């Protein structure tokens, strides 16, 4: 048993540590901002944009509606690609399940195709489909497809056969087994892959916009760079970062609600 005195000491120590941690993080954040400002003073406005100027620019863009316009172009391509890639990536493993022999025959080709950096296809897609939304949608979809495919595949493989047997034994129909056991079994894997895929989908759309576009966040950043508008580059990147981190936070929230039944799981999240 711990005496009340030692318990009190332990509580005080942990409170002290929390305080130190908070102070340390604040100090580090302040140092980063200060470093940014110092770099601006040292390097000059060609290389750095001061934090305040970036904020002002963002407010301007929001005010004249350009931010919303660019954002909606980017999000359109991203959401369409994300949906397509998720649907394909989740459906293919289910189809492959029908034939294990085909799965094994196709496997090395799927693996090999993953080796090609997806973005190298952009010039080809522009050649084929022009500079509209389509190439961006395809790139985003391909990016998402592989991640979801592998995640769903792993989830399917991890389905516990004993649960399926149990469900059949108590009288569950085939569709019931699919809905209850397979769907719930795959769900954590699907979430893990969606969480991984969402930021990548966004950056895929944006990088595709670097390469070809006449609107969108990526276009805004790259266009600013080409016009040596450093503040514009910074403002665009801040916007992208906020978007990615925001999307990630939203997905995490949704996941926590949908997977309440899971014990805390570190295995599926490399970073937590």
């Amino acid at each position: 048993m711990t005496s009340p005195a030692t318990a009190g000491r332990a509580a005080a120590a942990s409170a002290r540590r929390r305080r130190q941690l908070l102070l340390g993080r604040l100090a580090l954040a302040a140092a980063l901002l200060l470093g940014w400002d110092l770099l601006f003073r040292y390097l000059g406005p060609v290389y750095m944009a001061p934090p305040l100027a970036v904020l002002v620019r963002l407010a301007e863009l929001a005010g004249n509606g350009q931010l919303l316009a660019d954002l909606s172009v980017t999000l359109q391509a991203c959401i369409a690609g994300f949906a397509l890639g998720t649907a394909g990536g989740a459906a293919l493993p289910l189809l492959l399940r029908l034939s294990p022999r085909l799965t094994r025959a196709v496997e090395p080709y799927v693996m090999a195709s993953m080796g090609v950096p997806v973005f190298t296809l952009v010039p080809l897609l522009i050649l084929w489909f022009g500079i509209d939304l389509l190439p961006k949608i395809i790139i985003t979809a391909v990016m998402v497809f592989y991640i979801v495919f592998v995640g769903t595949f792993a989830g399917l493989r991890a389905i516990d056969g004993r649960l399926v047997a149990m469900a059949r034994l108590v009288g569950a129909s085939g569709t019931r087994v699919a809905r209850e056991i397979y769907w719930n079994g795959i769900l954590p894997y699907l979430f893990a892959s969606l969480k991984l895929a969402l930021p990548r989908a966004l950056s895929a759309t944006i990088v595709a916009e670097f390469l070809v576009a006449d609107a969108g966040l990526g276009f805004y950043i790259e266009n600013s760079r080409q016009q040596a508008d450093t503040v514009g580059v910074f403002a665009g990147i801040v916007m992208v970062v906020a978007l990615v981190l925001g999307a990630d936070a939203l997905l995490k929230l949704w996941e926590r609600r949908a997977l309440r039944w899971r014990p805390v799981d570190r295995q599926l999240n490399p970073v937590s």
Partner: protein
Amino acid sequence: MAEGPGDGAEPPVLEMRDVGRCFASRDTGDAVQWVIRHLSFKVAAGEFVTIIGPSGAGKSTLLNLIAQTDLPSAGEILLRGTCIAAPGRRRLNPGVDRQIGYVTQDDNLLPWRSMLDNVLFPLEVQGRLDEEGRRRAATLVDAVGLTGFERHYPHELSGGMRKRCALIRTLVYDPPIILMDEPFGALDAQTRSQLQADLLRLWSMAGKTILFVTHDVAEAIALADRILILSRSPTAIAADCPVPIPRPRDLQNIYAVDGFAALHDTIRRQIQ
């Protein structure tokens, strides 16, 4: 053999007639290996039969045949005089239209359902989730002392609680025959004897026919009306011995009951 109490006017609830199960061995090509061969016995309604045998004696295979998650390669299995399984039939009917419940070694609880929802799962898939079913589930939850844990997920329950949940999940839809495959194997001695007592109480209340596989001689004697002793592979019935200990039994002091020690000795010698 197997002149059990099933011989009488009404047909036995369950009858195995010369049942065999073989597997093709891949090493040798066409040669088959018999796991079970020439196995026959009868079980009367309301009887509690334990099955005991050396490890690797195809005990689980035997239960799988009765529950029809597997089909026999020889002989036939009769339920109340009607043949439910014989070689040549192709379609499995796991659980024989809810006539047979099966409590497996693993609890096989669905991790994404709360304790109560796990218990209700069979009723749900059978389309019988009504007021009466819910009431019965509540009664069973109460009978095994799980009240207050209805909303807990399986990972939040102890091993003994999970076992109880799996047990009442089978009782809730009222199958007349229940198979149990070393259900209490992985539990500590204390929990185990509690669960044994729970089981006997539920059995005397509900009037089920129970086939209970175990490798623990004391458990086999403590629970059963009759013990079937299996021979080493290929498995058949080596002996059929009634347990002359009167009910209700005091499981705590079953060791002191007249005849227990002698029976224990006989059976242990048989399975060695």
